[in-house]
């Protein structure tokens, strides 16, 4: 499918989503409330069939967190980016997609580890890289480490 066709098909099911085409990929911006049903549709609908998630990460914009998901379809040879804005800085939360794409399990644990975003209904929401007793989430812009020497 071309980007235009994807936009039409997505908007037919989810009229609330918006798009951004300034980057390399077609980007779908979706509210966290609608996020999980959109992801399920992207994975299972025969016209989309995004069966491969090749990147899952998060960005700290200080005013909000932005979850970023890169998806690819091996059958249709098209790819997109799904972004979802988390406005709650103190306690950011979003639904898990690790039952939709198995790889998201560890990626979500990494994002939880480094950004402190909690994934609802994740089966094993523990830190992935840092020690379990680590204090804070180091990739947050407001992270303070007394031992860190800043240049």
């Amino acid at each position: 499918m071309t980007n235009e066709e994807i936009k039409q098909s997505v908007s037919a099911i989810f009229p609330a989503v918006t798009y951004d085409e300034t980057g390399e990929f077609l980007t779908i911006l979706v509210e966290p409330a609608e996020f999980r049903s959109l992801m399920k549709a992207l994975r299972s609908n025969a016209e989309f069939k995004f069966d491969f998630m090749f990147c899952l990460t998060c960005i700290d914009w200080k005013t909000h967190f932005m979850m970023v998901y890169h998806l690819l379809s091996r059958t249709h040879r098209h790819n997109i980016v799904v972004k979802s804005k988390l406005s709650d800085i103190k306690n950011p939360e979003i639904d898990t997609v690790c039952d939709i794409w198995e790889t998201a399990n560890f990626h979500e644990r990494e994002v939880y580890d480094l950004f402190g975003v909690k994934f609802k209904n994740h089966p094993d929401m523990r830190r992935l890289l840092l020690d379990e007793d680590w204090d804070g989430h180091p990739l947050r812009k407001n992270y303070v480490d007394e031992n860190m020497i800043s240049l």
Partner: protein
Amino acid sequence: MKKVNIMADTQKLIFPAQLHETADGGIVVTKLDDIINWARSNSLWPLVFGTSCCAIEMMSAADAKYDWSRFGFEVARASPRQADLIIVAGTIVMKMAPVLKRLYDQMPDPKYVIAMGACTISGGPFFYNTYSVVKGVDHVIPVDVYVPGCPPRPEALLHSMITLQEKIKHETYFGKNKVAGK
């Protein structure tokens, strides 16, 4: 009785003793410190331990081209119980630090440490703006020889290991830290 000194300064690998030839064989005269240090320094067994790119250079130093077994290092041990040298080759992160400390503690005395490369000396390229890297492995375990470089060439590592051998040759039997003649 002919007296031959077979420990010349330029031939450190030669057995440190005097041979007194007699009609039915010979007598060897040496010092306890000399003979122990000779044995220890020429059979240093390194622990198989590498945490990043320095480890690749370390493996290269073990390979045929540089061949550290020429100096007695060839028996790399996978268990700290059997090793007496640990070459800290690569970045040590906070999560690795307790593991490294435990490995060092498990090694039997006398034991020696070589800090290989910028990361293990000071944190190196990760000195600034990092939350995860230990800024110098000597915060965790004591270091005998430091090798600068990022990564050091195998020649540099070999030089550091020979320097360590020189250091061991000046030890006394009772206590690693006592240096003979000082």
